[in-house]
């Protein structure tokens, strides 16, 4: 399979090599605001070159985008793994798209996919995320990891029907203790979380429709928990089978935009909730509202909740030493975005706060464009929590400050 992908990429790169390239060079440095035993004092120290090009060849649209990376903190940077993006090259996009008929689109290959209505909260978007990049101070672009998939859309009447087929499971670029620590001290760069990844296929479906200014959609997913969703007898992280059903709606209201989304996560390998080594089924709910408070100042608020099914079975089978989760996990978020100096400067703040977990996560950044080519970003990721086992609380030793300089070409 790996060889086939290489051939595919090579075939794509050939016609593109004659084109002038577009992209950027970026240096990024970030450090911990406190020490973390077992981790480097830096969270990020890298130099990155992104190059990309889109080329039209007859009815085909070929697109390639790749990052060449010198990641000073990655001990395995010489070991390139094209599939997972490990090592000094990360192929972000390598796809071929065409329109077989006026009512159908096809895009095959590596591509970044997103859907759903949440802002940094994902219910029905089960495309791979890169949590390492999200927390260590990389650009938000890197929260989305690419999928190796075939995406087919058909457009009967007012509807859009999307089918995404991923022949081999693309997991999240999940946290494994290398760089960002969790359950403090358990896993480190020298002793990362061992996992057992499945290689079956994934299916993502969406049926979307506009009714006037209202956007509605229904979703389905068949595959696996995207980040380790349990533990096997050898203590390895596993990715149990998962089926997700969901729906969303988004419409203008009260001078802003309202969105609501829900999803049911059917954990197929533990439907009774009695296996402590596999995630229970859960339901997720989201309500969001975005509006411009005044010129150049936008606010977004979200309320989010996760409800664990078979909670009694969970508490009964949970090993005594392990702290138990609550039946309901509630989360609120607030985003404020301010544009200044004719949009040359952008201030952005995003807070997650969970009253049930008593933890929080703050993402803040100041972006300044010196010119059309040069851009600087200064940002912070701050975690705080009462307990060590809650979602954000466990990251407390990873609070960091980072700076980046980027030159577009």
């Amino acid at each position: 399979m790996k060889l086939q992908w290489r051939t595919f990429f090579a075939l794509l790169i050939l016609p593109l090599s004659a084109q002038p390239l577009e992209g950027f060079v970026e240096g990024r440095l970030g450090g911990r605001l406190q020490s973390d035993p077992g981790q480097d004092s830096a969270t990020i120290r890298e130099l990155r070159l992104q190059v990309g090009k889109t080329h039209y060849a007859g009815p085909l649209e070929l697109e390639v985008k790749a990052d060449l990376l010198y990641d000073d903190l990655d001990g395995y940077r010489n070991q390139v793994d094209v599939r997972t993006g490990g090592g000094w090259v990360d192929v972000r996009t390598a796809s071929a798209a065409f329109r077989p008929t006026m009512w159908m689109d096809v895009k095959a290959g590596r591509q970044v996919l997103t859907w759903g209505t949440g802002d940094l909260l994902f219910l029905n978007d089960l495309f791979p995320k890169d949590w390492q990049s999200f927390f260590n101070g990389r650009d938000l672009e890197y929260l989305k990891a690419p999928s190796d998939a075939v995406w087919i859309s058909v457009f009967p009447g007012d509807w859009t029907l999307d089918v995404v087929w991923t022949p081999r499971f693309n997991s999240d670029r999940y946290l494994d203790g290398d760089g960002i620590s969790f359950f403090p001290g358990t896993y480190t760069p020298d002793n990362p979380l061992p996992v057992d990844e499945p290689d079956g296929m994934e299916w993502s479906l969406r049926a979307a429709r506009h009714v006037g200014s209202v956007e509605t959609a229904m979703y389905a997913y068949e595959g696996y928990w995207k980040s380790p969703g349990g533990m096997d007898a050898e203590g390895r992280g596993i990715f149990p089978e998962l089926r997700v059903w969901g729906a969303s709606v988004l419409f203008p209201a009260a001078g802003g935009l309202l969105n609501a989304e829900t999803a049911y996560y059917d954990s197929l390998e533990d439907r009774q909730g009695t296996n402590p080594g596999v995630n229970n089924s859960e339901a997720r709910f989201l309500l969001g509202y975005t509006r411009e408070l005044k010129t150049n100042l936008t606010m977004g608020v979200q309320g989010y909740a996760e409800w664990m099914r078979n909670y009694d079975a969970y508490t009964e089978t949970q090993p005594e030493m392990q702290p138990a989760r609550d039946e309901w996990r509630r989360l609120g978020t607030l985003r404020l975005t301010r544009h200044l100096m004719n949009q040359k400067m952008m201030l952005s703040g995003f807070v997650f706060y969970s009253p049930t977990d008593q933890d929080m996560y703050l993402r803040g950044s100041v972006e300044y464009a010196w010119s059309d080519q040069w851009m600087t970003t200064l940002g912070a990721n701050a975690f705080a929590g009462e307990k060590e086992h809650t979602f954000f609380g466990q990251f407390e030793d990873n609070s960091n400050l980072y700076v980046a300089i980027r030159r577009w070409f």
Partner: protein
Amino acid sequence: MKTLLLIQMLLSSLAFAQTELSVDDIILKAEQAAYYAGKDGIADVKMVIHDANGGTRERDFRILRWNGEDGQQKFYVYFRSPGDVRGMAYLVWKHGRGKEDDRWLWLPAIGKVNRIAPGDKRTSFVGSDFVYEDVSGRDPAADTHEWVETTDTHYHLRSVPKDPGSVEFAFYEVWIDKETFLPVKAEYTHSRGEIYRRVTADEVETIDGYPTVIRSTVEDVSRSSKTINTFSNIHYDAGLNERLFSERFLRRPPREAVQ
């Protein structure tokens, strides 16, 4: 004899009605000429932003426009440069008088279509001195329009906002070409009585039968910055399909927008 005189008077009053347009007629004709020419339109826009310190920034994009019924319009804007906006696409559905527009932005780096919350239409368009309303047109019903004077070549009008709290100007004056009905100059005055903003049509050419502004400037007098827009590759009645103005084509920009 009396009847003849009466008929003559009637005829001349009819003729008078034909040549002497009302202020509102002129405003509507100007809106038509400036924003609704043809069934659809395509143009490449090069925007050069000159700031007070002598620095310049540039934006290159293509606009596709489609006209529907009752003032409905759809716009598709595809950005080519600079790097940080390259490949982004912006979609607007204008629903006509007094209704909020629907707006979306395509972010190719994360593969996401972002619906944009209804916003202040007097906000800078992509960091330039143009505001959103300069690009998509201001609702004529939002202002009260009155005569200032008619010269040999222009109608000179003054427009006062009905809701002064919603805009940054106290009024603006506009000069409309009597032949083409294109607004060729607009000057915005704030409540302190000074002109702080000036938009001019610097060059006009007839393309596919429609008089078209091919270069325009907006000067922000108070900030001493200005932005110059140059339009090229302009086509009208290109037969654009309404389907292009959809989420489908945000995710996969159509060749009409890209090439």
